[in-house]
């Protein structure tokens, strides 16, 4: 299919830093190849802005192949844009039409403060991970054979599906409550399903949920929006598992 070009209008959130108020600015961008990714389109806009001696738009990106979890953007009212199962870097301009007006906003959450323009600080996710999203292992060098512990295939698959979470924050961004429960549910689940993770399961879920609440994320109301917008298709089954784990741990933990 021959590449075609479209002309678009962009309404992009510009904000100098966390202290100042931001606003939506309008930009016109012509000759955008429909084969370009959304981020390449923003690169094109930034080149134009630099040529006009203007401040380029700051946005997060890294691997540009949908695995690092750096890119974000709330595009036309949806996290990672209109395509399903993709991150913004995998979103292509062929999803848009000539003459479209495209709204681009940062993730909106009290726990994701804006750094600049479209860049938000997602270190709250790191702190939740640090509160319990790990398995303690000794590093004596006597590493156990990974296949020595039998694990049912179904459990391994579910753990793997949960572990597919790249921590991009789309769940928080799309949730009307700004809840991080899909992220935390996935992180809790990936360990809770495996024998290695069960050792610290109680402390893990209690500590991660406590950290999640302290960061100011909202409460889940089971709208299911997160699993629809999650670029990795993580199911809210993981939230239910976290709810079970939390109940078990709350009732039986001695802490």
């Amino acid at each position, binding site marked *: 299919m021959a590449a075609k070009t479209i002309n678009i209008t962009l309404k992009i959130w510009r904000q100098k830093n966390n202290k100042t108020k931001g606003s939506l600015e309008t930009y016109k961008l012509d000759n955008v190849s429909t084969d370009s990714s959304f981020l390449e389109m923003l690169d094109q806009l930034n080149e134009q802005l630099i040529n006009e001696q203007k401040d380029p738009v700051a946005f997060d990106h890294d691997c540009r192949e949908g695995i690092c979890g750096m890119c974000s953007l709330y595009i036309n009212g949806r996290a990672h844009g209109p395509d399903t199962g993709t991150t913004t870097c995998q979103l292509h301009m062929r999803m848009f039409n000539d003459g479209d007006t495209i709204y681009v906003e940062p993730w*909106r959450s009290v726990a994701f403060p804006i750094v600049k323009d479209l860049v938000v600080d997602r270190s709250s996710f790191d702190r939740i991970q640090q509160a319990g999203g790990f398995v303690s292992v000794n590093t004596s060098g006597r590493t156990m054979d990974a296949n020595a512990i039998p694990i049912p295939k179904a459990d391994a698959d579910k753990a793997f599906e949960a572990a597919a979470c790249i921590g991009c924050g789309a769940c928080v961004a799309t949730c*009307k409550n700004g809840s991080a429960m899909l992220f935390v549910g996935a992180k809790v689940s990936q360990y809770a399903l495996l024998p290695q993770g069960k050792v610290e399961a109680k402390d893990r879920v209690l500590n991660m*949920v406590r950290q*999640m609440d302290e960061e100011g994320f*909202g*409460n889940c109301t089971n709208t299911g929006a997160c699993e629809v917008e999650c670029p990795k298709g993580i199911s809210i089954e993981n939230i239910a598992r976290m*709810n079970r784990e*939390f109940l078990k741990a709350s009732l039986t*933990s001695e*802490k």
Partner: protein
Amino acid sequence: MSNSALIKSSIAKKYWMALTGLFLCTFLVGHLLGNLQLIMKTGEEGRRAFNEYAYFMGHNIFIKVLSYVTYASILFHAVDGIMLTIQNKKARPVNYAYSNPSANSSLPSRWMAVLGTLILVFIATHMANFWWKMKIKEDVPLHTYKIESEQQIPALAQQTFYYTHVPTIQPLPKDENSIMEKGTELFIKGSNIKIGEGYRDLHTVVIQFFSKSNSSALFGVLFYTISMIVLGFHLWHGFASAFQSLGVNHAKWNPLIKALGKGFAVIVPLLFAIIPILIYLKS
């Protein structure tokens, strides 16, 4: 930590929402079964059946305990819901300029707080109209069914002295303070002379409320019906959502829970709404 976690944490709040919500679903079924007696039997028989039911609900100790759990559940569900909503609003201080939530979630799921508030308003008016009259003001007239020695003096049986509804076998003092109520039985104070038996006539209060003779009945029926539609939307999301909050999400059971929830959300409010509509149309 675990002690406070079961009350304060975001997940625990969801457990309480789910538990009180599901309990209130069972309450709806009980309430509905009672209400259906308003249309299942007609005439004197229906009047008696409903009034006996209302008496039972007001006097059975088990039901009494349940009723306090119900009041507590409604209050807790509402307060917890308001707290959750306030926290959720705080979690996103700046809203999106452009949002397209219909692409990823159902309308009722996003409007639970508003729907719940409307239901609370309905419950307040509903209780003011019926519960308040029955339980607090106690000005629902008695309706008697059985007259001692009625055969001997049938003419007197038609006489009404007490609350204008109770026929008695002997002339009674007009002063109602000299009549003693003991459950459904009426006695002359200080004696064992039983003068009649009756139930508070909630049936007539309800029928009159929704009858065309009452000028505001049409408004009442409409308000009731709209409230039931709101309840239906609330349940459409709430029923299955409660199971998810409690951690019940299983490939084997999800289709059943979802089907039950949607069936419940349609059938229960529909049956509730049919009752005042029928009363209005028949009057």
